[in-house]
């Protein structure tokens, strides 16, 4: 693997007596796509929350571009280049699509380029016709895309997506996979996914989590062949 953009070392996270993460060490290489799969309660979302500073790990370190980022205030993550999309769509419903994208920029730099960037993103997520519409009026899938658009607005280096296709139709899932594949080479994307068709469509480096640990990792084809993974997770499909 090439030089990692993000590397976690022995992350442990306990909630009272519950051991949500029990020593997770993973590396994510620059400008590539990664999937995290695993049954409910495997610790996928907890890992995301620890990486993005929502939870402080009980122990372990997280290095982003070689720098330890544990303990940064939440708003710092977007500033150093880490953005995320939550599991439930959380666009700002009272605002228009355009305003949602506008508010996703932070800092004072390069404001003149904002409009170009917004146009570009609207085009990528396919909402250019709906720019002036209150985002509360969008369909579920459109909200998910808008949120992905918001997450890439500030030109992050690392994008974390928690189940971006939850509740989407097959066609919407396909579109989302194409959208994410389009980011390849420009930024690192880590996706938590449940839908095997989606993971198959992404066909990338895949990490399987189980009971707070990394069970196995590798290219999707290898993972799909792995007997243990099949047993606990894929086999019932």
């Amino acid at each position, binding site marked *: 693997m090439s030089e990692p953009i993000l590397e976690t070392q022995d992350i442990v996270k306990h909630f009272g007596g519950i051991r949500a993460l029990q020593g997770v060490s993973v590396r994510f290489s620059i400008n590539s796509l990664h999937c995290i799969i695993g049954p409910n309660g495997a610790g996928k979302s907890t890992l995301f929350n620890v990486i993005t500073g929502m939870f402080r790990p009980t122990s372990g370190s997280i290095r982003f571009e070689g720098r330890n980022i544990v303990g940064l205030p*939440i*708003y710092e993550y*977007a500033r150093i280049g880490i953005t995320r999309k939550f599991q439930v769509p959380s666009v700002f419903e009272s605002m228009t699509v355009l305003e949602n994208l506008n508010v996703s920029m932070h800092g004072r730099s390069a404001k003149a380029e904002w409009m170009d960037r917004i146009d570009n993103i609207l085009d990528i997520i396919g909402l250019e016709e*709906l720019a002036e*519409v209150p985002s509360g009026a969008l369909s579920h899938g459109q909200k998910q895309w808008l949120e992905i658009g918001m997450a890439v607005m*500030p030109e992050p280096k690392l994008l974390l997506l928690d189940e971006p296709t939850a509740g989407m139709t097959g066609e919407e899932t396909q579109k989302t996979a194409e959208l994410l594949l389009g980011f390849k080479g420009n930024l690192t994307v880590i996706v938590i996914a449940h839908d095997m068709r989606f993971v198959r469509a992404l066909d990338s480096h895949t990490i399987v989590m189980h009971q707070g640990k990394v069970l196995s990792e590798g290219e999707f084809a290898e993972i799909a062949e792995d007997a243990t993974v099949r047993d606990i997770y894929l086999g019932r499909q």
Partner: protein
Amino acid sequence: MLFKNTPLDRGEKIWLLTLAGFLLVLLVYPLWADTYTLSITRDTLIYGLLALSLDYLWGKGGLLSFGHAAFFGMGAYAMGITALNLNTPLASLIGLFAAVAVPGVASLVVGYFLLFAGVRGPYFVVVTLAIGIISQQAAISWVSVTGGDSGLLGIPHLAVTLFNLSYEFHEGMPLYFLVLAFSTAVLLGLWAACRGQKGNILAAIQDNELRAQTLGHHTSLHLLFVLVLSAMVAGLAGGLYAFSTGFVAPDLLGLMLSTEVFVWVAIGGRGTLLGPFIGAFVVIRLEQFISSINISLWPFIIGVFFVAMVFLFPDGILSVVRRINNFVARKTATHHQEDA
């Protein structure tokens, strides 16, 4: 800055036109109003300015203060104490400056500890309630400075001295227009401050603060800015009140006034900035009218009126305009979705 030049959208045009209409009425109003009525209107404008400061905090920042009169009272006392004790021709100007600065510093200290510790929602309401009560008690107890229960009397009108020229804003039109000018300037200033990116960030914080943080916004800092600016505007209103009426009393800091401000904003329309002025006008006029018929009737009527407003127009009088606007926007959205 790009969004300083953002073209006005339809809602903003309507807002500006409404403001222009009210301004026109208020500008010609002194032509037929006698001095007494004019002073009542002037005081109502001052209360409107106080309500505006709460609306900026509550409507735009999403933080409800139930002790907002404390900042108003602090401004009034700062003005009064300075103007009565400083022996220079500039005393009243310095007093007005103090009226803005004292609540500003107080809110900065209080706000830093509350907001950076994550105090929001009902907890924030309760703490501000306590601040109001504490300030009022302090004003009553600290007799040597505040005059205790009887307050301060004989606060001189604002006087501006430039070289050897001196101008005092007297009762009647001069004071009225001074207050009108301050109100308009602050209203337009806050309106401009809530446009574009800054306003979007505040709306985002109200919607989902955690989400706004993950987008890179230091939300506590944004809210602290809003709180301090709001307290400064409330203090300015207090300062204007002190030299306009000439007296200051502990009531100005109290829970009663804080509650009334809340009612003005709720009735006028939270988040509209213009609504609080209308709310203050409607409620104060109604109060005078009903009190002239029967004094004890007023608390009952305002209660019924408030409950009726909450049922009929939960977002205030001005919300009618916004509702029409939203309805049209939603129509457009469904059309687009049918096309897609």
